[in-house]
């Protein structure tokens, strides 16, 4: 079952992504999405598509080593905070976080 992609859905998604959209931007998303949706319809016509295992990684024939449990030196506090606009002593400050 596919859900409807509407202006309200777009605004709700944008809101959850913490971005504001103008009316015009909202409309552009809808237009662009129409094309994607048509193409996805096409994809769904590919026989046995559901039996294909989704490809989640670029190389999946890939053997790798896990990292050994060895500590690397921590980054200095000056460097950690050099791009931060609001901090106190050694810590970043944000407006009070209430649950």
């Amino acid at each position, binding site marked *: 079952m596919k859900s409807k992609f509407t202006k309200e859905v777009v605004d709700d998604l944008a809101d959850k992504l913490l*971005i504001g959209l103008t009316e015009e931007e909202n409309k*552009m998303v809808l237009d662009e999405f129409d094309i*994607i949706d048509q193409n996805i319809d096409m*994809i769904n016509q590919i026989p046995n598509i559901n039996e294909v295992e989704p*490809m*989640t990684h670029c190389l999946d024939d890939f053997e790798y080593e896990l990292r050994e449990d060895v500590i690397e030196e921590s980054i200095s506090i000056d460097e950690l905070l050099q791009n931060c*606009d609001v901090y106190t002593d050694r810590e970043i400050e*944000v407006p009070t976080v209430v649950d």
Partner: protein
Amino acid sequence: MAYMEKSIEEIHEALKNKEVTSKELIEESIQKSKEVQKKYNAFVSILEDVEEAEVTDHLLSAIPYGIKDNYSTKGILSTGSSNTLKDYIPFFTATAIENLNKKGAVAVNKTVMDEFGMGGTGTTGHTGIVKNPWDPSRMCAGSSAGSACAVATGVYPYATGSDTGDSIRKPAAYCGIVGYKPTYGMISRYGLFPFASSLDHCGVLTRSVKDAAIVVDAMKGIDKNDMTTWDSKDIHLYDSITGNVQGKKVCYIKELCDIKQYPNASEELKEHLKNFHQQLDLCKTIGIEVEEISIDSKLLNAIASTYVVISCAEATSNMSNLTGIIFGPRGEGDNYIDMMKDYRTKGFSPLIKRRFVIGSYVLQAQNKDRYFHNAQRVRRLLVDTWKELYKTYDAIILPVGSGPAKYLDGSLDMLNEDTAALEEHMQVGNFGGFPSITIPDGFINGLPVALNITGNCYDDENILNIAYALESNMNYKGQIAKEVNHG
């Protein structure tokens, strides 16, 4: 001829023979950067106070180069061409750049790109659009627009790029130069600002295949900070270039290359495909076997949407660290939600916001299977199809896009219904992590066009060698952009 217009081998020779010093090269490159900046807006930063480097036996020592602005560079502004990072100065350098710097390479500027690589026009960077040096009314394509523009104008022999869909290979084509992205994981992505992690590749833009080999030899290597890298110490790209292609087999896809597939073809497309077929004939004359193969159009037509769905989904998540809390200009707001939202709304361009919304939609629980998982399934079908071909052929050779660079004013970087598989087929190179190189193969109305060669994973030496042989038998190696006037 200016030194910065020469090949890496030639410049190295000149340095070795003391015809020129590192300092003079830097001065030339910075001077040229300023000219190019004025005309085409290719740079986010020009590094005025670069120190000269010692000339060693390494081919790249003491030679200037450019860095796409999505590579993290210690102490140097790194914006990803986004307002969200407009003042961001990292405290660490990307592994690929560190590898170049260790060899004595000298970075002289950071190049403009589409914001975080999410675009194919070179028009969405926060410092403005990049113009095509062959015709400033046209785009460079993107996202590595500034890098392509700078290499094409002779600012230096090479610049780094990144490629998620075709972000190195498309702008290289439109600017008449070489664009190469090696097999996924050959170059570390540590310190590359991510767009879509399963598709992102580092690579390079140069004016010749050999130069591309030299640079990637220097950039590559397994990295403890990137689990997706692998050991490539037995791969020697530069050393393995022989130009001998006897017995090599390549194929091209009928559904993409046959003019009969395009009943409403423009004059440019007709010429582009005609030119491509001429180069196929050239392949045959130098000993390469060429065959036409056929692939289900349904699959080819799904490439673009597959790419959009996967890349937008990963991008939405990858860029969730951009909240203005740890870095970036702090947003305004009484609570943390408003604060983050203010920063993100002001910081991202409309294009990116649209892509985030799409990415978020396709990942929603009720939509995920239909969109995201199906896209991942088609990704596998496409990759398997390509891999099947690699059992028979050394490479797949295809034209890049539907002609030369597009006009800036007509460019809307959106999927539109006319988008043909021809424009987007190079994205399969990202789906499968395949080594893929674009080289110029001709001109249409004085503007460069290109072809692309894509091979199987880990087979980079073979691909570069075929590209080199072809390049050597065409006349477009080492070319510098000349503005053309269309009356």
